[in-house]
Every structure is written in C-alpha cells, then in structure tokens.
C-alpha cells in the first residue's frame, strides 16, 4: 500500500534519512521504532509531504507522491496524528474534529463519522464544546486521533501516541489503535515505547541514525537479542 524506496532527506548538511526503504501492506500495523533523533518523525513528515526528500520515491497505492502537496496526500488517504498531539487550542473539541474533515465535502457522511468518533471516544462527546486546551494529555491524544479519523484515512500515521502519558493511558491508547486497525485502517506506528509497539505490530522496522538497521515481524524483533539490549532494557 505504502512503499518507500531509497529515501534520502537532508536538513541543510545533516543527512537525516539515509536510503530508507520500507513498505506497509494493506491491513497491517507496522511499527517504526528507534531512539531520539533517529529520523522517525522526519520519515513521517516526509510521507505527509511536510518535508521534501532530496532523493527517493514514496509510492502510495502505486502512485508516486513525493512531489504531491500535503493536502493532496491527505485527500488520497494518508493522515498523520502528529507528535505531541498538536490539537488546536482556541477551537472547541467539536471544531477540532471538524478540522480533520476539512477536505471532505460529503456532509452527511461527515456527520456519521463524527458520531463514530464520539462513540469510540465518549469523553470527547462529553467535552465537545470545551476548548481543546482544557483537555488532559490523554484526552488530547484521543482528540488528535479522532481528528485524524475524521479525514477517513486509508492509512493512519501515528507519531509517538504514548508520549507523556501515564502507563494506564498508554495501554488504553494502544487498545484503541488495535481497534481502529481491526476496523480496516492500515496503521504506521512510530514509537519510542518499543515493547508496546512491538506487541501490537505485524511487522516492525528499527531506525538508527537515519538508516533502517533491522526489520522483521513484531515477534521476531521482540525476541531478538539486539533489540532486547538496545530498546527493551535487557
């Protein structure tokens, strides 16, 4: 579904992504793990068209989207839940969700999807007229995910959904991710919390200083000695 070939990204002289090649098949949860500064977020931003690569191809459903505008990429079905939530304060929860459906014109369908999001995250319905900035971290994460779902993505890019959340909330968020996946959305999950990410992923890639260092099924990587040492704390 999403195929990345020999992707190279530079920030000025810094070579942030080096020949990254990976793929996400339809219906999978693929995890991308790695330490701080490995290039995980850069990769997601490049997929979304927020950063331009200097070389390489990104194929989505067979079409090269490297030169496409972000809005066209979103329209095609790739939506990102950015790192650190980035909900819009100054707008209510309801308005935030509407922003997710910004490019869609099918009003009736949008309404239906809004109800679905409220069903999945009842807390958002409760707080629908509240300013987004008054939500807790976990609620904001849910709002960010709900907002992304409003775009009706074919593939959801999640950037560190567990960041800054209490362990119990992390579990809840991951359950929701599995749930979204079970209902037919492909997921590319970027995480530092490798253990959690590997536990739900079909396949995973390990990114180290801009290079794909390892790849395999979630299980394989969880059991690999190298990963155990580097990311799972022995």
């Amino acid at each position, binding site marked *: 579904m999403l195929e990345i070939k020999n992707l190279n990204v530079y920030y000025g002289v810094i070579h942030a992504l080096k020949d990254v090649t990976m793929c996400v098949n339809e219906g999978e949860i693929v995890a991308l793990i790695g330490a701080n500064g490995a290039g995980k977020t850069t990769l997601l931003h490049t997929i979304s068209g927020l950063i331009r690569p200097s070389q390489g191809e990104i194929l989505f459903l067979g079409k090269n989207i490297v030169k496409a505008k972000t*809005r066209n990429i*979103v329209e095609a079905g790739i939506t*990102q839940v*950015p790192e650190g939530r980035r*909900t819009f304060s*100054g707008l209510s929860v309801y308005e935030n969700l*509407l*922003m997710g459906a*910004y490019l869609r014109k099918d009003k009736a369908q949008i309404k239906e999807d809004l109800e679905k999001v409220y069903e999945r995250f009842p807390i958002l319905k409760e707080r629908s007229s509240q300013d987004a900035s008054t939500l807790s971290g976990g609620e904001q994460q849910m709002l960010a995910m709900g907002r992304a779902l409003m775009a009706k993505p074919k593939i959801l890019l999640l950037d560190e959904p567990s960041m800054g959340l209490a362990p119990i909330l992390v579990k809840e968020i991951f359950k929701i991710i599995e749930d979204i996946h079970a209902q037919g959305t492909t997921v590319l999950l970027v995480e530092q919390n490798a253990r959690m990410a590997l536990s739900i992923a079909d396949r995973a890639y390990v990114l180290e200083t801009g290079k794909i260092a390892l790849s395999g099924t979630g299980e394989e990587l969880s059991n690999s000695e190298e990963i155990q040492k580097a990311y799972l704390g022995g």
Partner: protein
Amino acid sequence: MKKMLNKANLYWLLFCVGGYALLMGLMSAGIIDAVNQTVIQTIIVNIILAISLNLIIGITGQFSLGHAGFMCVGAYSAGVMLKQIGGLNGFFIGILIGMVINAVLALIVAIPTLRLKGDYLAIATLGFGEIIRIIVLNMDITNGAAGLVLPRVVDFTILFVFMVVALLIVVNFTRSAAGRACISIREDEIASEAMGINTTKYKVIAFVIGALIASWAGALYAGNFYVINPGMFTYSKSIDILVIVVFGGMGSMTGSVISAVVLGFINSFLQSFSNMRMIIYGLALVMIMVFRPSGLLGTREFKFSSLFKRFTKKKEASQ
C-alpha cells in the same frame, strides 16, 4: 443551518440600533459635546482598524506591522477622490478605488512574505508600510508632505454603519470554516498543514480582508477629520493599532472594541496633562499588561447566548 434571525442575532441587532439611537440622541441633545463627539469618531475609526488587524494577528497569528500603510492607501484614495469629484459620491468612489489598490498591494505583499514567520514577517510588513508612506509623500496628486485639506462628508451615521458592517464581516469570517482554518494555523501551522489545510491560502485571505477593512478606516478618517498627511501614517500608527489589539486580547473582537473605547477615553482624558500624557498612557499600558497579560478579554468573546445561560443558571440555582 441556523436561522438568520435567531435570538442572539436579534439581540445584536437591537443592541446596535439601541446603541446608535442612544449616541445619536445624546449628541443631538447636546449632552455629548463637540470634543467628545470627536473622541467617539476617533474610537469608531480605531475599532475598525483594530478588528481588521486582529483578524490578521489575533485570529490567523501573522504578525503584521504594516497596517498604517493600508490605512494610508484608503485615506488617500478617498481624499484624492474627494478633491477630484467631491461630495459623498467622490467619497464612495474613493473607498472602492482604495479597496482595489489595497487588494492588489495586500496580495503582492502577502504572497511572498506570508511564507516568512514571526519576526521576519513583522519586519517585512513594517518595511511595506513605510514604502507606502514614502510613495505618498512623493506624489503630486497627494500634495506631498503638506497633505490634503478636505471637506467633511462623513457623519456619525456613516461611521457607525461602516463599523457595524466591518464587525459583521470579521466576526462571521472568524466563525466560518475559513475562520477555523485561520485559528488552526495560528495554533499550529504544521498540524493544520497535516490536516490538509492550504495554510498559505488562508493566511493570504485573512491578510487581504484585513487590508480591505483597514482601507475603510482610512477613508472614514479622511472623510471625517478634514486633514490627512503622510506623517499620520508612520509605523507608530501601526503600533498604536497593535496596542489596541494586544490590550483588548489577541483574537477577541469584543476585546478590540472595548479596548478601543477604553484607550480612546483614557487618551482624551489625558489631553489635559499635556507633557505627562505619554508617560501616564505608557504606564497604564504597562500596568494592564502586567495584571492581564493576555489582554482585557484574552481570546474570549461576549455572546448573548452565554449571557442567557448565566441568567438561566442563576434562576435554576435560586429555585
């Protein structure tokens, strides 16, 4: 879809008409004297300027310091037409011409500069404002540094109507889907881009609408205050407008209106202190920003609907 004439809108209409009738009555009865009438006229022009700048700075989050430039274009378009054609016809033709020029200028400025961020944008727009002033200073038709002496063609009714229309446009824009897009850009440009919003487009739209409304303010100023000259439209005028916006709360239109009124009266009250005036004014601003750093109202708006809610809540509580 909500009905056009729902309760809140009806109350706003009554509020506007009532306010207009009250001020008109007090003026014709002579209770508001000529001095205070001038203060009110200044306040109205300032309200229009402030809400138009608030749309750019407070709602869309683009820091512009060139607002006096757009006002200047509006003032001179109306001024020149008042000289050439005269009367209210000349005035309205002038407004139209000013809007056309401002739309073109705003596009020329916005498309390259709105890619800049924060400080860079402020400096670029500051430069733009000064360029406009220098051009006006060196043209024959504008009579250079001496400026234009004009007849007064604008009365209180015209001022008030323009203010209400400007408020209607800006407030409705803010509440529309486009307005939400602008707010999302202010809050987080990357996230709104990631939602598929064409951020440059909405920044340009807000900037152009702001510039158009600023040109009304300029035209009203020219049609009301007899004299315009380039010295009135320096960058310090842009900063005066910015002060009103920041003081009222960035992003709050109600705040801009209240702050224009409050600052207008503080200013006129301080006239009698002559030398001390700017010191006291500055001190008052510092004090207010210390105690209310996000402005008088922050980003809140006054709504009749929330007023009702408060009343009904009180009733419920007392029952």
